[in-house]
């Protein structure tokens, strides 16, 4: 874009041609006030707050709708303009209830701020204000009409941004109102974007209203714990009897990859943390009954039992099930704990995508994974399988907005008529289960197209599509778990024929990608290094059993046959997820770490109450491979994070935790003097830390110590620590990953969550449950008619 030069308030500034004046001013620190203008939404020019003087124009002009032009001379601050702003505020306040002290937006209200900045403190009006009662539009959306200043942001974000179109404008003149799509309520995705974008307190959230004042909260920016997209969410926390209570989720500083976006889960479904069924202390099975115990008792028991089994039967008698919602540090630690402390490769987790196959296919291909940011800027997108609107709300938002704002073509191929077809340049429906043939066809097998042909799509159409795709530059190819194993490799092969193509593989949970990267597999170590063979991990970890362990079905079989003597389940509910007979493990010693007495925890011998992702620190890797910080926001006293629990179990087993967590000085090798194979070498970890200006960690419970190790050892994770800590997402790469292993694609099962469900967490979220109930109630009303 060529630059144009203009003068604003006597200052010469430049801006790319096509820039809106209001943005150009903002870019040089000149604030032009506005209510209705909102970046990336259609222009309104409605609130008239942004009026400025442009030379040669008789009237004041709206900076929000004026495009900069060469030689333009602009004044943004004169008596006339000040008066214009002030009078707009006077008019707005004329009908605005001054109930700021009890308004949720009080203290965070753009109208308050504007009034503070531009005056209009005294009212010229003495007529009664137009009053209307507040309305509840859904379990999470409340509307207080008199507070509404009609900036139409909510209408636009719901329609243009979300493609939901649940809000409209009705009546006209001073009777104009924002109206919901169903007479007195909304039928929508309940994302709360309308609430978030509302500059005043007209739209308020059922989850937060009247709970607290904004200034009484502490705000912690962290990563959402629900789906695999990894939105940044800011949690508002305040003191509670039991620690720190989360009272609000939003995206106030819009700094994450998700910008403005959050879905219902990211915004409201933090409330599982305060569910009344939350486990508050360890439980030990005594006389067949789970009975409250102290941490010391519980950890000692687990340590003793695990130690005994290891000594007697060897580590292979123990199975470890990890989680897709624990942090990378915890997943890595668990993987290492299993191998190094227990001496077992019986490690698995709920697999929702074929990341090992993906990693293997992308080995040696730098820059071939797409970040979440890429999805918004990609010049073209190919989407195969999945229903991002339901399963990956942020990804869907990025796709929609890329199409809307940049005009990127979207090619979607799916066995279901997914909603994103509305944004698609081309949507092709295939029969369920033919995704593999699709990948083959893409990779060049023309015969495979026969399975794809349907009354609506001829073979020629398929050939034309493939040709068309090959002409796209920097195509981003996104695929769901419908593609696994060889099909992933085929698709990547196709991608090689498209210049600059990048890929994203869609997995379901907040840290599914991380769990895979951190090696929660029986046959893979972190970074997809095969268990058989040699890698950094074999060398550094010292003790890694050499043959592949049991996967989950294997553990079940071993449980049945009695060869599995203990099962250690961290933050996972396989009994319910995989529909396993709970008595399978009745002869094994089962330890479960979780928030709730899940189906799996119910059959445990020891239940350890764990903190959730909103109550601890670490990192998550989203489905695109973007690494982000998880920060501790809430706190429930008496609970421990999975990280600490794992370390303490190792300790209770009498294991030297220095060998598990690199904390303290000389963590690895006393500078190399004493340890056999390592002797004579410097402590690599210390050297690595030194080179990056980092300090050794002093606590064995500090996940940062493991992050150091992850960054040092896991391929693709050596991203900028500075940027990571600053809250930016850092894209990891699979180019240097290990060679992968036999990936057993049949073990992958989708979580099948939709917008309103989130596995076990969802069941314990009142917010989600109330929305599900209200939607069901509405549908049964219809059905009963």
């Amino acid at each position, binding site marked *: 874009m060529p630059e144009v030069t203009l003068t604003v308030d006597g200052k010469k500034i430049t801006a790319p041609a096509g820039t809106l004046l209001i943005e150009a001013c903002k870019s040089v620190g000149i604030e032009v006030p506005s209510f209705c203008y909102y970046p990336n939404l259609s222009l309104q020019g409605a609130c008239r707050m942004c009026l400025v003087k442009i030379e040669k124009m008789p009237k004041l002009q709206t900076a929000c709708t004026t495009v900069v032009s060469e030689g333009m001379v602009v004044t943004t601050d004169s008596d006339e303009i000040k008066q214009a702003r002030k009078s707009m505020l006077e008019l707005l306040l004329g009908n605005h209830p001054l109930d700021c002290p009890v308004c949720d937006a009080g203290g965070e209200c753009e109208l308050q701020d504007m009034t503070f900045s531009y005056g209009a403190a005294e009212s010229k009006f003495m007529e009664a204000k137009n009053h209307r009662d507040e309305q509840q539009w859904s379990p999470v959306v409340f509307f207080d009409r008199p507070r509404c200043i009609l900036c139409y942001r909510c209408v636009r974000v719901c329609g243009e941004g979300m493609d939901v*179109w*649940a*809000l*409209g*404008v*009705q*009546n*006209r003149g001073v009777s104009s109102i924002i*109206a*919901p*799509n169903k007479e007195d309520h909304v039928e929508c995705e309940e994302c709360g974007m309308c609430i978030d974008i509302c500059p005043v307190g007209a739209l308020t959230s059922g989850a937060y209203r009247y709970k607290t004042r904004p200034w009484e909260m502490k705000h912690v920016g962290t990563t959402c714990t629900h789906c695999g997209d990894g939105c940044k969410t800011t949690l508002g926390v305040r003191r509670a009897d039991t620690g720190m209570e989360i009272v609000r989720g939003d995206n106030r500083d819009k700094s994450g990859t998700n910008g403005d976006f959050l879905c219902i889960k990211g915004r409201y479904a933090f409330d599982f943390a305060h569910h009344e069924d939350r486990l508050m202390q360890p439980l030990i099975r005594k006389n067949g009954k789970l009975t409250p115990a102290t941490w010391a008792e519980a950890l000692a028991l687990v340590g003793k039992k695990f130690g005994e089994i290891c000594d007697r039967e060897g580590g292979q008698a123990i199975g470890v099930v990890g989680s897709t919602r624990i942090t990378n540090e915890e997943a890595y630690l668990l993987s290492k704990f299993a191998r190094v402390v227990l001496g077992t490769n019986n490690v698995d987790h709920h697999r929702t995508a074929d990341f090992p196959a993906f990693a293997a296919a992308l080995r040696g291909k730098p820059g071939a994974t797409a970040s979440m940011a890429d999805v918004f800027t990609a010049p073209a997108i190919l989407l195969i399988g999945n229903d991002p609107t339901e399963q990956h709300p942020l990804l869907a938002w990025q796709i929609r907005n890329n199409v809307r704002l940049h005009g990127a073509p979207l090619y979607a191929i799916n066995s279901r008529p997914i909603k994103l077809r509305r944004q698609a340049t081309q949507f092709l429906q295939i029969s369920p289960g033919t995704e593999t043939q699709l990948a083959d066809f893409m990779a060049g097998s023309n015969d495979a197209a026969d399975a794809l042909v349907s009354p609506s799509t001829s073979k020629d159409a398929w050939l034309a599509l493939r040709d068309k795709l090959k002409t796209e530059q920097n195509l981003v190819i996104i695929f769901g778990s419908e593609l696994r194993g060889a099909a992933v490799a085929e698709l990547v092969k196709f991608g090689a024929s498209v210049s600059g193509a990048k890929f994203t593989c869609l997995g379901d949970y907040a840290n599914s990608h991380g769990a895979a990267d951190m090696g929660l597999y029986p046959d893979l170590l972190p970074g997809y290094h095969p268990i058989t063979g040699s890698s950094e991990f074999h060398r550094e970890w010292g003790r890694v059993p050499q043959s592949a362990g049991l996967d989950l079905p294997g553990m079940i079989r071993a449980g049945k046959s009695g060869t599995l003597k203990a099962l250690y389940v961290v933050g996972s509910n396989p009994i319910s997820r995989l529909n396993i007979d709970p008595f399978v493990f009745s002869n094994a010693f089962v330890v479960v770490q979780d928030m709730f007495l899940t189906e799996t925890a119910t059959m445990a011998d020891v239940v350890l109450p764990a903190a959730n992702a909103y109550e601890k620190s670490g990192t998550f890797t989203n489905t695109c491979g973007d690494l982000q910080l998880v920060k501790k926001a809430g706190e429930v006293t008496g609970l421990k994070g999975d990280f600490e629990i794992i370390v303490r179990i190792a300790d209770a087993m009498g294991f030297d935790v220095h060998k598990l967590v690199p904390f303290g000085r000389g963590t690895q090798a006393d500078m190399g003097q004493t340890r056999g194979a390592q002797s004579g070498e410097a402590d690599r970890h210390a050297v690595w830390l030194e080179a990056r200006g980092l300090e050794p960690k002093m606590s064995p419970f500090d996940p940062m110590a493991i992050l150091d190790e992850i960054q040092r050892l896991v391929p693709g994770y050596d991203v900028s620590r500075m940027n990571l800590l600053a809250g930016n997402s850092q894209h990891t790469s699979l180019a240097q990953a290990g060679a992968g292993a036999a990936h057993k694609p049949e073990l992958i099962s989708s979580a099948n969550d939709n917008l309103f469900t989130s596995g076990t967490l969802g069941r314990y979220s009142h917010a989600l449950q109330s929305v599900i109930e209200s939607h069901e109630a509405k549908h049964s009303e219809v059905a009963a008619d």
Partner: protein
Amino acid sequence: MKFSDTFEVRFAEMVTHYPTKRSALVPTLLYAQDEVGCLSDEVIAELAQRLELTELEVRNVISYYSMLTTKPRGKYNVQVCTNISCLVRGGEEILHHCQKKLGIGHKGTTPDGIFSLEEVECIGGCSWAPAAQVNYDYHENLTAEKMDKVLEEYRRKEMQ
């Protein structure tokens, strides 16, 4: 939902006049209202479906236009203009007269459902003020007596 044949013929032709379907919306709504009496939920659902709009969009449009209504009105909608040209020639008196005569106020409907009354903005009868419309018929240069006759006429029509 069934409309008259005349409506269907008109609708079928009208949608061919525009490059987008929804363009036919405003005139179509008025014709539908004339036929059904008001824009009922049923009418809204039907037209939304025909013009590929959401019901919300149709409602947004309806509520903008003052001639469109979702609530039934009397068979004869008496619309008295009181805007400036009529005002200075006694438009308000005509309105008050109708109010008294019909026993209803602005936007009211007589119990027998025959008349509704509405104070309206300028209807383009300025040079022949005061003016009123009963449904689409103009009545101009009105006096209270003339207005009585007009109302009588409609009532008689209804009785037949």
